[in-house]
Every structure is written in C-alpha cells, then in structure tokens.
C-alpha cells in the first residue's frame, strides 16, 4: 500500500518519455524530439538532429567555389533562391565583382516570389498541423502560380539554381512580367478571404494566443531571428539592418508584433506576404534593361585570402555564409549559419511545461525546414 502512495505522490513516477518523430507529420521532416511528459505536459524536451546530414560544409571544401551553388538550394528547399542570393553575394563581395543593375532587380523579384511561396506553404501546413484542413488547399492553389512562374524562368520548381556569380542564368521576358503582375493582383485579392477564413477564427486564436512566448532577450541568447524575433517587437530584418542587393531602394515595412507568442509570429508572416508583393511591384516598375551577366567573371574564380561573410534574410530568419579562403579557388572553410538551427534551439526552453498540443503549435510557428538544420 505504501508503494502506491509513494508512486502517486512523487511526480517523477508519473513521467514517461514520448518519442515524437523522426517521421511525425508535424515535425515537417526528419526531426526527432524526445518529450518527457507528465500527464499531458511536456516537462523536458530534447531535439535529436542529424538524420538528414549531407556534409554540405565538407563538400564545399572539395570543389571550386562556383560549383557549390546547387548545394545551397538543397539546404532550404523552400528558400532556394534566397540561399542562392546569399552565396552569390558572398563570392561577389569576396572577389570584388560588380553586378549589373538588371540582375539585382531580377534577383529581388524572384527572391521575393520565393519568400511568398515559402510563407504560403508554411501557412497551409501550419494550419494543417492545428487541425484545419481547408486552408492548405487555398494556399497551395496560390503557391502553384509562383512555382509555374519560377519554373518558366529557372527551369525547376523547388531546388532552384538560378543565380550565378555575377549574374543570373536566364533573362526574364515579358511573359514573366505579365504573369508576375497578374499573380500580385490575384494574391492581394485573396487576402480578405484568408482573413475571413482563418485569421479571425476563434479556435486559431485560442490555439495560438499566449503560446510559446519569447522575449527579445531570449532571442538574443539563442540567436533567434526572423518572424519569431519580429513577433517580439524587434524590427530586425537583414533587408533593412544590413541592406544588401538593392533593397534600400524600395519602400516596404517590417511587420512586427508585441507579445512574442505564436499569434504574433503568425501575423508577422501573414503581413510579410503583402510587403513582399509591394517590393515585387516596385521592382517590376523600375526594371531596367541591360545585361544579365557581368562579362569579366573568370572561369576559375580565385578568392583572395581572408574571411568573408554574407548575410541575407531568408524566410525563416538570418542566413549567413562565412567563407575562409587561402587564396585558391576552393574554400578553405565554409560555414553556413542557418536560421532554423538557432530558432529550433530555443524549443527546450520555450516549450517547457507546455501542453503536448501546444508543443505542436509552438514548433509549427518556428516554420522549421529540417534539411537546413542538418545541412
């Protein structure tokens, strides 16, 4: 009898470990999380990574710098062009290559299309995680238009390798411009529908409000960036903080939240769709004529000795490439700092003591792409 009382009184005896993943649908990839549960509450969390490790950093040390471009797209399959952009910028900065103006415009337009595409997928998939089946149909309908537009110009639908050092591989044509304008118009006309269908929904509000709250200080300690950070009220976006390419020419806002909970980052992402549309519109209006490639890029691109950094705003936060060169055309060391990696590392602290169902809400709000964590 005494044994039973002991068991009932000591909370440690109630704990058990639940294995979430690596094939769980709401982890969106091969991520495994060990949850120590007490009843329905997650008391300890331990993410287990590395199932999708493909040695990208090791591969980079074994081939010429220019040949690494396709690998960048395979890290974040949803933000492939933005990963292209960061890497192209890194080499251009390191080798001192000027890029024609038209190229910068094309890069910005396609990168922003890519960002919208990523946010739309997250929007549908996140709501699916929360039990709403319909929105993903609408989101994928819109997303399909972007994939078609980008397929025409880049040749692929997901893992783009479109940017080159000093340019892009193919020029955009009138068809691209018309269909992009049509898409901007269409997506804008869909926003009221999304607002009505999803954003004001009382179930969504209850699932997201006050769940997974972060503060700017927590974000600094963990290196959390992107919409999660902006949800806490810090207007930190690499497009503004360290303006790269021609982003300083455009008029756009950086949406922020206040509470830092899942609802805040949800709304930040939703409003970023509109801001990306604004950038695309302005870029299409100002699109100059000109070459799409710098003529003087050597075939064997030697990077002067030293270390270089290039940071861009990926859909999930700050992406940084850090290159150490010994003067040859093969990197001595290439480090890729991916946003999801740092964003996920906050989970054990953020989700401690949470209901299991809220863990799904909180992890979905991170918008994880596992291949960029594992690299």
């Amino acid at each position, binding site marked *: 009898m005494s044994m039973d009382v002991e068991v009932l009184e000591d909370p440690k005896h109630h704990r058990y470990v639940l294995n979430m993943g690596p094939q769980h649908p709401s982890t969106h990839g091969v991520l495994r999380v060990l949850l120590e549960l007490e009843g329905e509450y997650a008391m300890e969390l331990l993410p287990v990574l590395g199932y999708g490790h493909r040695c990208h950093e090791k591969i980079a040390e074994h081939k010429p710098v220019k040949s690494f471009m396709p690998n960048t797209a395979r890290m974040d399959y949803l933000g492939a062009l933005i990963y292209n952009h960061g890497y192209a910028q890194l080499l251009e900065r390191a080798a001192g290559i000027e890029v024609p103006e038209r190229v910068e415009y094309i890069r910005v337009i396609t990168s922003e299309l890519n960002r919208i595409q990523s946010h739309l997928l997250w929007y549908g998939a996140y709501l699916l995680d929360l039990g709403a089946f319909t929105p993903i149909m609408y989101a994928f309908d819109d997303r399909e238009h972007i994939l078609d537009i980008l397929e025409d110009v880049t040749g692929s639908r997901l893992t783009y390798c479109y940017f080159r050092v000093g340019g892009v591989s193919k020029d955009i044509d009138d068809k691209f411009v018309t269909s992009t304008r049509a898409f901007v118009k269409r997506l804008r006309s869909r926003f009221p529908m999304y607002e009505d269908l999803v954003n004001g929904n009382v179930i969504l509000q209850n699932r997201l409000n006050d769940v997974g709250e972060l503060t700017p200080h927590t974000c600094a300690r963990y290196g959390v960036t992107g919409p999660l950070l902006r949800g806490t009220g810090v207007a930190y976006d690499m497009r503004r903080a360290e303006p790269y390419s021609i982003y300083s020419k455009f008029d756009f806002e950086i949406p922020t939240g206040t509470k830092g909970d899942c609802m805040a980052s949800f709304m930040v992402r939703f409003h970023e769709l509109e801001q990306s549309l604004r950038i695309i519109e302005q870029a299409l209006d100002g699109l100059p004529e000109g070459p799409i490639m710098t003529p003087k890029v050597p075939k064997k691109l030697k990077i002067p000795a030293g270390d270089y950094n290039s940071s861009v705003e990926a859909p999930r936060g700050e992406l940084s490439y*850090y290159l150490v060169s010994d003067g040859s055309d093969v990197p001595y060391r290439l480090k890729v700092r991916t946003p999801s990696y740092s964003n996920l590392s906050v989970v054990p602290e953020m989700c401690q003591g949470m209901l299991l169902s809220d863990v799904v809400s909180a992890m979905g709000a991170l918008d994880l792409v596992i291949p960029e964590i594992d690299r």
Partner: protein
Amino acid sequence: MDINKVKGQWQNLSTVIEDIDYSVSGHDYNVCLDHEKVRDFAALMLEEGFYLVALMAVHVSPAIEVVYQFAHFETRCRVLARAFVDDNGEIPTISDIYQGANWHERETRDFHGIVFVDHPYLHPLILAEEDVDLKPLLKEEANLKDVAAVRRQPPEPAPEPKAKPEPKPEAKPEAVKSQEQS
C-alpha cells in the same frame, strides 16, 4: 549601444582589435582573444545586447581557431571574435551565457573534436553517436595551412619591417586594393 564604449571594454580582453571594411568582408570588427578571456568577452557582448550569430572552428596551423560571430539587433555591427584552443584542444564553453551556443559547440565538437570545458551535454548532435571520433572537418597534413595564409594579405610585402601598431590604419586601403586587382 555605444560602439566606442564597447570597444574600450574590448581593450581589456583582447590582443588585437581591427576595424574592417564592411563592403569588402561583410564584418565590421575583428577581435582576437586569448582562450581564457572568451567567457568574459561573451558576457560583455550579451550585456551590450549582441546576439550570437554563429560559432564555428577553422583548422589551421598551429592550433584550431574557434570563431564567434556576433551582431546587434539595433545597429549594424558585425563582430568576429577568434580564439585558439589550448594545447589540449580545449576552450571554455559559453553555452551558459549564450544558450544558443550549446548546439553550435556540440556541432563543433562533432566536426573538429574541440572539447568545450564545462559544457552541460557535449554529445554528438549532427553526426551519429558512433561517429564521435570522426572529426570530418580536420584537415589532412598536406592540406593544413598556416594561420597567416588564410588572413587578409597586403598585395605586395612591405619592404621595411614595421611593428604591430602600424598595420591598423593601412590594412583597410590595402585590402580594398587587393580586391580590385583580382
């Protein structure tokens, strides 16, 4: 954040502080640290509101170099801090100051075999448990470069040997020049 004040505090901790041209390298400052000062430096950076962008290692001769990259949410200030590991391949952890360093240090342990002293859970993160001794990013003897070979270099060697305090103002224009020539 007042960068001059912060730089003043770096003086007590570091051996070299360099201003770097952002348009050339993508950083603003380069700070060389002694491995014993790493924790003090991290604590100072957190207090000033910097966040840890990444932590990585570069295998050079004579010792593996650990590179910390910091940036700031309010102003553009990208800082690279570097420190060599000690003779046993160890360096103090900063994961109790910047919790985000926890995983970066585990990853660096996987790739380079560096031991972060007092790390709470230095288990393989990216690599599998059985690959704990693989250390895939260590260079082979033939490929290992001296640390001077991976530093930004002036285009032609200066004829007169100058003392250390001098190169600071010179380093910037020379680095720009080397970019243009390439």
